[in-house]
């Protein structure tokens, strides 16, 4: 197991390095540079000076070597658009809100989605099943920005604030008040996806002989679900949840924008459209690192949940 984890960490570093290299060079082939993307047309001399200051006058390969050296010292550079704001600061200040929103959304959507999926599978063809399918289809076919806007219009304004976010260290009720609506908006897609996959996966499992045996032994429905169905039906859910966690934890542009959540999501979009190179690199590395950790966690979770897979993953067969 120790060897397995050591190997995974080695792979992770190599993968991250490839991602950052490819992104660095792709980023530089994008048309336009940071000096052109602001509204003002800068005088020639200012552009020259800015480029010299940011090191953009050097050849790309040299820039890359400098960037790597800085990165190894843990410095990801200073934003071009907001002088004085370093990429490290952006992540430190913005990540907590995204993380909270993301984790809450994942937990809410997993709990509701799994329960709905299991109930639907056990009541196949009855009204509960149709209700689940209806929710699932509603959840995937309404864009998240529409759903968030509807929530904001009809649910906010009274107890829940229209925009805003709970400050760190506020009381539990305050946190609930501030985060409930964005969390709900962020979890609707997950509820739809998980309930649909769970329903189908449980239906597959229910046709197995061991379920028949469990029924014949006289196990209660609850015992059958927790001991046999859940474990066998959960693998497809793990493969969807793991990468989604990375995406949702690092922030959603749309939801953060609608509810004014001070999260990381907007930097993914704004750094690219503003050609803010240090922030592009920082957000990419950050997202990729979390994504890869989630993928490793996914493999370990597979092995924990399903003894059949343990052999093929850990022993590498």
């Amino acid at each position, binding site marked *: 197991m120790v060897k397995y984890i050591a190997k995974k960490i080695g792979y992770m570093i190599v993968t991250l390095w490839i991602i950052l290299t490819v992104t660095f060079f792709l980023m530089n082939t994008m048309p336009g540079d940071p000096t052109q993307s602001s509204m003002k047309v800068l005088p020639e001399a200012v552009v020259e000076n800015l480029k010299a200051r940011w090191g953009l006058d050097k050849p790309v390969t040299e820039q890359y070597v400098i960037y790597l050296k800085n990165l190894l010292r843990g410095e990801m550079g200073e934003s071009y658009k907001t002088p004085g704001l370093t990429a490290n600061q952006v992540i430190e200040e913005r990540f907590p809100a995204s993380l909270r929103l993301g984790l809450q959304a994942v937990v809410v959507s997993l709990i509701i989605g799994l329960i709905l999926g299991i109930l639907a599978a056990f009541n196949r063809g009855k009204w509960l099943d149709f209700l689940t399918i209806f929710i699932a289809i509603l959840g*995937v076919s309404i864009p998240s920005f529409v759903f968030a806007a509807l929530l904001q219009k009809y649910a906010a304004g009274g107890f829940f604030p229209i925009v805003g976010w709970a400050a760190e260290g506020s009381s539990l009720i305050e946190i609930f008040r501030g985060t409930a609506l964005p969390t709900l908006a962020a979890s609707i897609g997950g509820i739809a996806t998980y309930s649909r996959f769970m329903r189908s996966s449980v239906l597959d499992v229910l046709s197995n002989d061991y379920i028949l045996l469990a029924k014949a032994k006289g196990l209660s429905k609850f015992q059958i679900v927790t001991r046999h169905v859940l474990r066998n039906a959960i*693998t497809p859910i793990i493969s969807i949840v793991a990468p989604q966690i990375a995406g949702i934890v690092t922030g959603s542009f749309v939801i953060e924008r609608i509810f004014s959540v001070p999260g990381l999501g907007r930097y993914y979009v704004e750094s690219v459209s503003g050609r803010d190179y240090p922030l592009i690199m920082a957000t990419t590395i950050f997202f990729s690192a979390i994504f890869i950790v989630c993928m490793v966690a996914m493999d370990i979770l597979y092995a924990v949940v399903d003894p059949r897979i343990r052999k093929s993953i850990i022993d590498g067969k």
Partner: protein
Amino acid sequence: MQNKNELNIEMFERLGVDEQQSENIVRPSMSYWQDAIRRLKQNKVAMISLFFLIFMVIMCIVGPYIYPHPYDFQNIEITNQPPTKEHIFGLDDLGRDIFARIWMGGRVSLAIGVVGAVISLVVGTIYGGISGYCGGRVDDIMMRILEILVGIPYMIVVIIVSVYLGQGLHSLMIALCLTSWTGLARLVRGQVLELKQSEYIMAAQALGTPTMKIITKHLIPNTLSVIIINTTFSIPGFIFSEAFLSFLGLGIKPPLTSWGAMAALGQQQMTYYPHELIFPAIAISITILAFNLLGDGLRDAFDPKLRQ
């Protein structure tokens, strides 16, 4: 009790088994595909969905030609008009007919949704199948490649592809398809990792079945239920990704439109002119519903585990 009394042994006659007849095949033999298509045809909901989707596609192709109002004509005097007899879905904020725009937008959205889903279905299934089945080093390398593809920000990829190919539908499709199959690949890999330990795979291996045949004949049909659900769910994903990119100015350029872009525009007008959001949203929802119901029908028809 009365019935039981009426039955006596004289009422029954021994038939015996005609040994000549016992070897005859009663029903015509059917291949997997014939059987699946027969099942699909029996499924009314799935067939209705299929015909509805065909209808939508035909309307998107011919709709703009037979409807009197052009999709890009701006009638500035009556902007934001709610539905009337003349403009049955109303007008948008620039006075363009929403009914006409739905069919033009449908071309873009359906094309992106369907092409994207088919490409990610094919690539993702094969990639995930090979990665999961081969395991070990092959799996490691294939999964790392996948991580690299996901890690590179796709907005940069979209920008670069549209620099080389020009901004428009085809470069959007290419950029979206480059990474969209990774989700399905992971899903199939997870399922294959589980299935390849089963006895029937061991039996196939013992009989000397080639690897590709084991993957395509045994492993993939048994993961079909998750593959189909993922595919039907990926269609709205594509439609919304396109909407998001168009919103950022990287996608379809106005006056051409798409359902996602129309919904995004309508959302800004939602408070006062809800019809601008409602009609595109309904178009998306009904189409997705039809895809999902058809997907369910396909799953029931093709999944070997649900066939008994």
